[in-house]
């Protein structure tokens, strides 16, 4: 399969995706030099940033930028599928379920996502959070099909759920 070497090529391939090609198959063809993404990175000392490269009715492509040790809240979302691919640094994904023996949540597993792996997240019972465990900044390329419009944040200790509309730090309009 032909590799995808530019961001514009990636957005075109995603927009023109045929029914017999999977989103993951497209993501696995990505061989974009991390430097090409740099102009879309944004950083904030207070929180990780969500930078939307393209959003259609079918999918949304984001760059998520983490300063060292920054992390997302424990959350899940209303989309069908998501793939997370680290392009700079290393992320730990922790996964949770409702604590069967009491209140709050229980951590059920964790995986480390490096540049060779894809983390697949299903909207079904998928409470998780990402932590930048790398010694420096990390960035992930996230593909959501369909776009995430809202998500639920979960309090680890109490299990309390807060529904929030998803926001972006920057929205680029790539062709």
């Amino acid at each position, binding site marked *: 399969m032909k590799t995808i070497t530019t961001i514009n090529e990636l957005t075109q391939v995603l927009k023109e995706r045929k*029914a*017999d*090609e*999977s989103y*993951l*198959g497209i993501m696995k063809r990505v061989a974009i030099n991390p430097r090409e993404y740099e102009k879309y990175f944004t950083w904030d000392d207070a929180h990780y940033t969500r930078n939307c490269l393209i959003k259609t009715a079918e999918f949304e492509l984001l760059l998520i930028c983490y300063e060292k040790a920054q992390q997302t809240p424990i959350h899940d979302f209303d989309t*069908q599928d998501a793939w997370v691919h680290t392009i700079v640094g290393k992320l730990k*994904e922790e*996964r*949770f*379920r409702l604590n*069967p023996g009491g209140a709050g949540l*229980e951590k*059920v*597993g964790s*995986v480390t*996502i490096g540049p*060779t*792996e*894809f*983390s*697949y997240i*299903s*909207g*079904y*019972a*998928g*409470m*998780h959070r990402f932590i930048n465990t790398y010694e420096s900044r990390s960035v992930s390329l996230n593909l959501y099909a369909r776009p995430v419009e809202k998500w639920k944040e979960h309090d680890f200790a109490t299990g309390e759920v807060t529904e929030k509309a998803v926001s972006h730090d920057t929205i680029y309009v790539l062709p």
Partner: protein
Amino acid sequence: MGLDFKKFATEGEEFLHNLSVELNCANDQQKAGRILRTSLHAIRNHLSPNESLQLISQFPMFLKAVYVDGWKIKTTKNKVRHMADFVKEVQNIAGPTGKGDFPTDEVVEGSINTVFMVLRKYISLGELEDIKANLPKDLKGLLNYDILI
């Protein structure tokens, strides 16, 4: 509640189509079906009956049937020492098409990994982690091959 077999069939066909796309064989759903059946039966051999029942309790009806088809319940799990043993086991389960559908270790691991990615919409994270925890040491990477599910 009545049994709507047409609905089960429609759901099954949609699932198989999605799986064939993910397995990169969209023009060969028969192959996707064989890989699904073989993958489920191979994993089944390494779970206790109780673990299997917990897993299939989350499956839709069409998948329950595929999982239990031909199941001879044993109280002991199959033992494998190396991935190579598991690859042979998978090829044996697959029968005459085994060497074509599962020619290498990488294809075995990648196929099972992909099957469970597509199954993920039916399996809770807790159940998935229980399955991983109960797999033999040498097979623990199966469900996190290059897709971390």
